[in-house]
Structure formats: structure tokens, C-alpha cells
């Protein structure tokens, strides 16, 4: 580093340092690390999150990246709080810049006391410059190790012990562990040695934790497995590709097999073949892939094949902005498929809910022999959450099985419309049929049989509603007696809950969008003077769905630029509405 530059930094550190601590919200830190694709931003974000996690903090990590492999601008915002959080904020306390673009794009996020840590060889900025590039070049190491230097420096600034950094490096680095440890220590040393580093805000250990850090996709994988999934089939598509990767990498622990066939059509066809043969299966995709699956969705309805689909929404129509988020497929999930048949659409809002609802989706699909869609989106699937679920609370519930007496009728008429299941190889002749069929599964065009078969399937919808009436289908957060009710679904939950607590509102969050927990919603919305729907789409689909059911929504707050609401952003908008 040049001496002049060093002097300038020292001056800045001395000058700004005292202000710094005053700005930081007590017990809460927000760190943004940015660079170009290939700089290991995601990995660094994960390592920073783990460091805070080891100190007991609740974590939320937002990932933002364009659809490319090298170049472009990637960043992760790691937020750590002594209180439970599930959203990011626009303001950050520390900006870690691995290139100039990170400073240019994000300096607006910095407050008076915020700090920038940067690679002084590449970046012109105020704050703590560290010659990261030079440090890796000197050792002949790849440039990606700059992110470990940044981790070390950040930890020193925040007063996190070197032992924590070393522990995190060992846990997260698959390769070059020793080299990573060495550069992390050096980054740590430089930062602790600088007066600026010593004056930074200190992340004290807080009670509780550490907690497992899970992305929505990872939580979905665990929930599906816990719900009995044995085969997972998917064709890669953001934002659920990582679900496929995770299951493929953890087949033994999850007791599941991951396969990657030639198309989403093959994916769902294979999953349904497996289900017909008695093996619980699931598929994952995004809107484009789901479009290809729709004919088989209808088949699931008609042939009554348990079919679990994870639909990770992203910004569309068509290819849209593939790595950005949107909640635009609600109506698509609810109404896709030719014909009238029962289904369930579930919308988890964080990792814990993703786990439980994924297990529940498996059980519902098999209990009622219907398609069940789990609506995720990029923001839920790829963000990281502190999780606190009890895995033992979710398990595989046995479906209604044939008792082995008499001739087996795959589509036997029953009171609740659910016919007992039997599988090939078990002695019964099992006939699944996409045509309208009689009770044995033989094709029919008889008017009376057609009507009876349709009524039988529709009875399952009633049975499903009745079954769900005994379950938690809706959650209320914030102040339940507030005059202001925020209605949200899916990934918008986290941000709404946080803001509701600050502005004194309640949050009404249905976990089931279809069937809609109408009575519960009526009860909850009755007392509210102002009902504000918040959605990550441009037409307010869920609010329309509520109105379709005769439920009141007074205002609709929408965001459809591919970026999820940040908590300070949403708070500002709500305060604007509320006056």
C-alpha cells in the first residue's frame, strides 16, 4: 500500500471512528459484501453469516446476482440481530467491496458511521483498505481467496475472535483450508492493527444460538425428505436448482434419490410413475418449467396420482430476469391445468415454514391423492435464515391403503372421495387412467359414470378443507389487536413481521392459499380498520383472490422490480400510506 493512501485512511478512521458506534442499531449488524461473479460472494456471505451465528445472532442473508457466471455484480447482505429477523435492510453498517463497482453501487446504503472495507489494489474508497489482491498474488493463490481476507478483516473490525474466523473457515472451505486460514489471519491482523479497525462496532456474544442456517431450498429439501420423499426429479432452473443440488449431495442423509431427466415434462412424468408404483416423489422447478408440467398436473387430478411440486417463482413472464424474485405465479399455481380437480397450494414464508409445509405437502398429496404445489420464490428459496424447527414434529403419515379383500378398485367410490391405494407388485391389479374411468380404472364415456367420477374427485376437495380446518392454516404476527392489518403470503412474511412490530400493526399470513382459510381470514380481518395487502407482484393477485372470496382489502402495496422489500424500505412506504 502506498504511504499517502495509508495516511489518508488513518485520517479518515480517526475522524469518523467516534461517530460510528452511535449509528449502529444496538444488537444488530448489516454487512454487504459485493464483487463480481466469480469472486465467491455467496461463499463469503455464508462465512460471515456463520461467524455471527456462532456468537448467537439470528441471521438473514439476501443474495443478489445477475444471470451469468463471470463478471457482472454480485452481492450478499448479511444481517445479524439479537432478535429474530427474516429480512434485510437497505442501510448497511459495513460494506465489503471486492471491486470498485461494489462501492459505486452501494455507497448510498452507508450512514455516517458506516465502514467500508475494500481491496486497496482495486478500489478507491474511504475506510479500511487492505491489499487483498497483492496478498493472494504474493502467495500464488487464486483471486477468490480475497473473500477470506475480507472475512478476516471484517471479523477484526467487529471484534469477533480469530478463533471464530478459523472455525468458520474450516467449516466452509472445501479446498485450500490451510491457505484460507493463513490469509484470513493476515487480513485479521492488518485490520486489528489499524486504528480504524480497533474503533469499529463490536459484535458481542448474545444469548442463544448457534442455530442451523438454512436457505429456503435447503429447508424444503429436509421437509420433503421428512415427509417421505424417496425420489426427487428436477431439471435445473433458478431458483430451485439448488434444491436439486442439495438433495443430490445429501442422498444418504436424506434417504432420497435425486435425478435430472431431459425436461420438466419427463421430470413430472417420472415422478408420477414412481408415485403410481408406491414411492413418494417430488419435483421442483420455476414458472417456465411448471408450464411444461401442466399437462401432467391435470393428469395428477384425473388419475389421482400424488404429485408434489415445488414452484420457485422468479421474475417473469417468459425468461424475465431469471435470478430475481417475484410472487407472480399465484394464479398460475392455483388455476393451471385443464379441467376441474382438487389441489392444494401452500406458501411458506421462511425456512421453518418451508420445512414443515414441505413435509405437510407430501402427506396431503398422499392422503388425498392430489397435486400439491409449494409456492416458493427466489427470495425464499435462495435467502438464508436462522432456523429453529423441531424436525421430529414432521413425519410421514400413512395414506389410506387397500385392505386386500375382494377385487381391487383403484377408483373405488368412498364417502370422502379418497380410494384406498394399492401398488403394482402387491397382488392387486392397479389401473391408473388419464381418461375418465370407472371404479376399476377402465375407460368410460358413460354419462352417469362420468358425473359420479367427477363428484368423487370433488368430494376430496371437501375432505381436504375439513382436514385442514384442524391445522394451522394461517398465522398472525405483530399486534393481533391492531387496527392495521398487513396481509402477506410467502416470502413477504419476514419483512412484514418486522415492520409490523415497529409500526404497531398485525400481520395476517395464510400458509394455505388454496384452499383458502376463509373463515379464519374473515375472523382476523373483521376487527381491522385498515387492511393493507403487500405482495411482490404487479397486479395484487392474492388481494384479488381475497376479494373474490368477499374479503376486504383496502390498500395494496406492490413491488415488482425483481427485488424483495427491504425492512426500512417497506417501513417508509407504509408510514407514507398511513400518514
Amino acid at each position, binding site marked *: 500500500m502506498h504511504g499517502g493512501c495509508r495516511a489518508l485512511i488513518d485520517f479518515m478512521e480517526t475522524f469518523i471512528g467516534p461517530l460510528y458506534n452511535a449509528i449502529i442499531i444496538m444488537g444488530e449488524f448489516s454487512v454487504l459484501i459485493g464483487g463480481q461473479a466469480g469472486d465467491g460472494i455467496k461463499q463469503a456471505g455464508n462465512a460471515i453469516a456463520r461467524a455471527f451465528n456462532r456468537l448467537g445472532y439470528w441471521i438473514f442473508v439476501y443474495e443478489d446476482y445477475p444471470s451469468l457466471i463471470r463478471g457482472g455484480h454480485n452481492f450478499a447482505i448479511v444481517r445479524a440481530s439479537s432478535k429474530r429477523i427474516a429480512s434485510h435492510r437497505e442501510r448497511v453498517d459495513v460494506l465489503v467491496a471486492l471491486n470498485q463497482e461494489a462501492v459505486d453501487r452501494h455507497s448510498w446504503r452507508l450512514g455516517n458511521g458506516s465502514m467500508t472495507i475494500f481491496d486497496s489494489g482495486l478500489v478507491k474508497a474511504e475506510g479500511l483498505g487492505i491489499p487483498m489482491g497483492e496478498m493472494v498474488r504474493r502467495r500464488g493463490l487464486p483471486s477468490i481467496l480475497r473473500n477470506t481476507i475480507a472475512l478476516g478483516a471484517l471479523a477484526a473490525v467487529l471484534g469477533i475472535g480469530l478463533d471464530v474466523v478459523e472455525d468458520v473457515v474450516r467449516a466452509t472451505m472445501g479446498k485450500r483450508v490451510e491457505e484460507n486460514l493463513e490469509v484470513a489471519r493476515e487480513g485479521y491482523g492488518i485490520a486489528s492493527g489499524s486504528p480504524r479497525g480497533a474503533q469499529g462496532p463490536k459484535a458481542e456474544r448474545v444469548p442463544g444460538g448457534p442455530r*442451523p442456517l438454512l436457505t429456503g431450498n435447503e429447508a424444503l429439501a429436509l421437509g420433503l425428505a421428512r415427509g417421505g420423499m424417496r*425420489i426427487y426429479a428436477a431439471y435445473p432452473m433458478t431458483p430451485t436448482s439448488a434444491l436439486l443440488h442439495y438433495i443430490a449431495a445429501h442422498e444418504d442423509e436424506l434417504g432420497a434419490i435425486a435425478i435430472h431427466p431431459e425436461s420438466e415434462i419427463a421430470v413430472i412424468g*417420472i415422478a408420477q410413475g414412481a408415485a403410481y408404483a*408406491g*414411492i413418494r416423489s417430488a419435483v421442483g422447478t420455476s414458472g417456465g418449467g411448471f408450464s411444461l408440467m401442466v399437462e401432467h398436473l391435470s393428469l395428477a387430478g384425473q388419475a389421482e396420482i400424488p404429485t408434489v411440486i415445488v414452484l420457485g417463482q422468479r421474475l417473469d413472464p417468459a425468461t424475465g430476469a431469471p435470478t430475481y424474485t417475484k410472487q407472480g405465479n399465484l394464479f398460475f399455481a392455483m388455476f393451471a391445468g385443464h379441467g376441474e380437480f382438487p389441489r392444494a397450494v401452500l406458501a411458506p414464508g421462511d425456512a421453518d415454514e418451508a420445512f414443515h409445509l414441505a413435509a405437510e405437502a407430501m402427506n396431503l398429496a398422499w392422503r388425498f391423492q392430489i397435486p400439491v404445489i409449494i409456492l416458493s420464490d427466489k427470495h425464499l428459496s435462495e435467502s438464508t435464515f436462522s432456523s429453529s424447527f423441531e424436525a421430529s414434529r414432521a413425519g410421514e403419515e400413512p395414506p389410506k391403503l387397500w385392505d386386500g379383500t375382494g377385487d381391487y378398485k383403484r377408483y373405488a367410490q368412498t364417502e370422502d372421495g379418497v380410494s384406498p391405494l394399492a401398488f403394482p407388485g402387491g397382488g392387486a391389479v392397479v389401473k391408473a387412467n388419464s381418461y375418465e374411468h370407472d371404479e376399476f380404472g377402465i375407460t368410460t364415456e358413460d354419462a352417469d359414470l362420468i358425473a359420479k367420477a367427477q363428484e368423487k374427485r370433488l368430494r376430496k376437495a371437501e375432505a381436504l378443507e375439513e382436514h385442514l380446518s384442524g391445522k394451522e392454516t394461517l398465522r398472525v404476527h405483530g399486534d393481533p389487536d391492531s387496527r392495521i392489518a398487513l396481509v402477506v403470503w410467502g416470502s413477504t412474511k419476514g419483512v412484514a413481521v418486522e415492520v409490523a412490530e415497529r409500526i404497531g400493526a398485525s400481520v395476517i399470513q395464510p400458509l394455505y392459499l388454496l384452499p383458502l382459510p376463509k373463515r379464519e381470514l374473515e375472523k382476523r380481518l373483521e376487527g381491522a380498520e385498515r387492511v393493507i395487502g403487500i405482495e411482490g407482484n404487479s397486479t395484487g393477485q392474492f388481494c384479488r383472490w381475497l376479494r373474490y372470496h368477499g374479503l376486504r382489502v383496502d390498500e395494496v402495496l406492490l413491488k415488482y422490480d425483481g427485488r424483495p422489500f427491504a425492512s426500512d424500505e417497506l417501513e417508509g412506504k407504509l408510514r407514507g400510506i398511513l400518514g
Partner: protein
Amino acid sequence: MNTSDLKTYAKNTWCPGCGNFAIELAARQAFAELAEEGRLKVENLVILSGIGCHAKMSDYLRVNSFYSLHGRVVAPATGVKLANPELTVVGFAGDGDAYGEGLDHLIFAAKRNVGIAMIIHNNRVYGLTTGQFTPTSPRGFPGKSTPKGSPEDPMNPIELMLASGATFVARAFSGDLQHLKRVIRGAISHRGFSMVDVLQPCVTFLNTWEFYSKRVYDLQGEGHDAGNREEAMERAREWGYGGGAERIPIGIFYEVEKPTFEELVLRGRKPRELPMPDIGRVLNEHV
């Protein structure tokens, strides 16, 4: 086992003289014979069909069946085999079904060598939709969608399957029941992916009965080496599904052993017996 035990109460609605009758009977006889010989448990047999005239096999045969979607037979068939490799999985599909709408699945099944037998009822015309050209119709075929004649040359599914890595590729003719039954037996008994292109007349929309009867000859009767891929390819090119050929080979073009998809994916694991997930162990990685 009596072959009539394998029939359901469904009323048969194929046109009198349809080639499907012979395919259905040959399949039923093949199943019954293999069951008699202890080489097949009927309760472990699963048939699948697409949509089209052929697909009524699912209604007519009293065995486990999955009457699927047009073009998609191969996908659920793959799922059934993967879920329970002890099952014998036989897919029936039409030429529009397997070579048109769902061609990609057929190619990938061959590429993967998944342990299913695909029997293609190839009448070279869409019957159930009343007479349009299919991927194997001859050029100039005057179907309802191409009244001035099909502008496309037919595809050669035998050549295509050989190129795709299929480990059992055969052709049969619905007019030679005994031969057809032998080939279907061979396809079912083959370990891995097998495909049989069954030439059949559509008596209503494209009656090829006489055309085939005059031209077919049995490869196995002429010393064809089914273990030789080059020779198989040469024989496959002897007739390109057009109108002008002198001779049309039927029988087994190619047969070779390779590890199957389900063996490679499952590595001895049985999906039904996979252990319950150890979530606690997984969560430890995430702290």
C-alpha cells in the same frame, strides 16, 4: 396360464382387421408364456400406454396399467422402473406418440438404457384423430392435414434408436403373429431398454397390409449378426419407411448388454427401503 385370463371386461372398439388385435394377442401370449415359464410374475407386470388407438391396451389387458398422456409413456415407465426395479415394465405407444409428440423421451430412454420395453404400434398414420400424417408416413401421404401430400420424408426409427444407444432394437409385423410374439418376448426379457417398431396396417386410414406382406423378411432367417452395430445400421437403412423398397427386414437388428439406468442410479438401494432421513445430522453442517 390361459391368455384369456389377461383380458378385462372392456369392450373392444378397434376396427375389424386392425393390426392392434395381433399386437394385443401377441403381447398377451408373450406375457402368458413367460409367466408359465416362471420368467415373469404377472402381478409384477406394469404396462403403460399413451393416447391413440394403441393405448386401449391399458383397458383391454387385465394387468397393472398406467394409461398416460399422448407422447409421455416413457417418462412414467421410467419412474415405475426406478421406484421398483423388480417390476417388469412394458410401454405401448403409437408412432405419433413415440416418434412425434414424445420423441425426446424415447431417445433419452435409449441413451439411459432404462429397463423398460417399448412396443411401438407403427401404423404410420394418426388413426384416432381420423387420418393425419405421422413422423413415419411416406412423403406424399395425403392425410387430412396434408391433402396435397405430406411434404416431409419419413424418419427411420430403427436408425434413430441405434444412434441413440438402444441396447435392443427390433421390428416386427402385425401380420406375422408368431414372429411378433417372439420379438416381444425378446424385448421383455432383455435387460435394459428395448424397442420394437411394429408395422401394422390401419385398415381405415392407411392399409399397408399387402405392401408389408409382400416385402417383409426375417433378419434372423438370413444370418444377421445382431451383436454387430454396423451391420444393424446397414440393415436398418435397407428400408427408409418410404414406398419404394423391395424388401423390409423384420426381427432383431441389434441386441447388446450394458448396465441399466436403474442399476447405476440405485446402486443396490431399493427406494422403498431407503432409511428415514437423519435431519439432525444434516443440520450439524449448517451451524
